[in-house]
């Protein structure tokens, strides 16, 4: 069992106030500034948001699951690049997560890579925690 912690402070009201992701259990990051405007408008001003943190969590989880699945099938990847784009609609929530995977995987063809990516999308723990997201897509292709 693994427990992971984060602490956030917020000052003032939602619209004009602002917050900070002060620290996380590992000490790996923080402080990170957050605000409602940076979350809900196109221009983030370099500030992170819950949706960006979810995107990072999902892209990392997806990369690990894909690396593991490929290796188990005897096609250990040399390199993988994944991304997650999380769409947020204020008042509705997260409506879409688009995952991508690019990889250098000796001995595997494009179809095999796509199948492995689809499988990792279904089975990584973050995907399973986010099954309520209406649309989750994956786009996978091998590096030339």
């Amino acid at each position, binding site marked *: 069992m*693994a*427990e992971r912690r984060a602490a*956030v402070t*917020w000052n003032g009201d939602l619209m004009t106030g602002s917050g900070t992701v002060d620290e996380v259990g590992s000490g790996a990051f923080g402080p990170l500034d957050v605000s409602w405007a940076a979350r809900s408008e196109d221009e983030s001003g370099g*500030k992170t948001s819950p949706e960006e943190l979810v995107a990072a969590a999902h892209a*990392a989880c997806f990369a690990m699951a894909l690396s593991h699945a490929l290796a188990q099938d005897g096609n250990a990847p040399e390199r993988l690049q994944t991304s997650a784009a999380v769409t947020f609609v204020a008042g509705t929530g997260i409506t879409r997560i688009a995952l991508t995977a690019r990889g250098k995987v000796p001995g595997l063809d494009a179809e095999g890579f796509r199948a492995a990516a689809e499988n990792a999308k279904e089975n990584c723990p973050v995907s399973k*925690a986010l099954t309520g997201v209406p649309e989750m897509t994956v786009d996978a292709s091998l590096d030339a």
Partner: protein
Amino acid sequence: MPRIVREAEVAWEGSLSRGSGVANAGTGAFSLPVDLPSRVGDAPEKTSPEELLAAAHATCYATSIAGEIARAGGTVEHLDVHCVITMDEVEGKGHLIVRSDIDVNARATGVDQAGVDQAAQAADEGCPFSALIRATASVSVRAELAS
């Protein structure tokens, strides 16, 4: 309603158990190393998907409860929000995120503890992240008005 897209990218080298990756935020707000040992074992200075989710949930909830306390007629001065995400190995299902526990200490005027309790419940219902993970994990929220 405007649709906002936030993106992050991970570059991973090598196997799951011995390889490692870097997670980069689209906004440039962070660039973080990730690997498996820091995900399932002790976490010395490296983050993990679950820690990033804890940060996401704490942030989402902080904005939610700030809004709800104001709606209840209170004025928020300062909120401390802690989130703990628990991942466990569930028989037949592999690793699952099983819990998220939120704990808030609120400094606010114009609202009493009962009002803060109500705001905490409403914030849980209103935070989209709470709603999402409640489908497969348990979520608890607790908020205390600082005296």
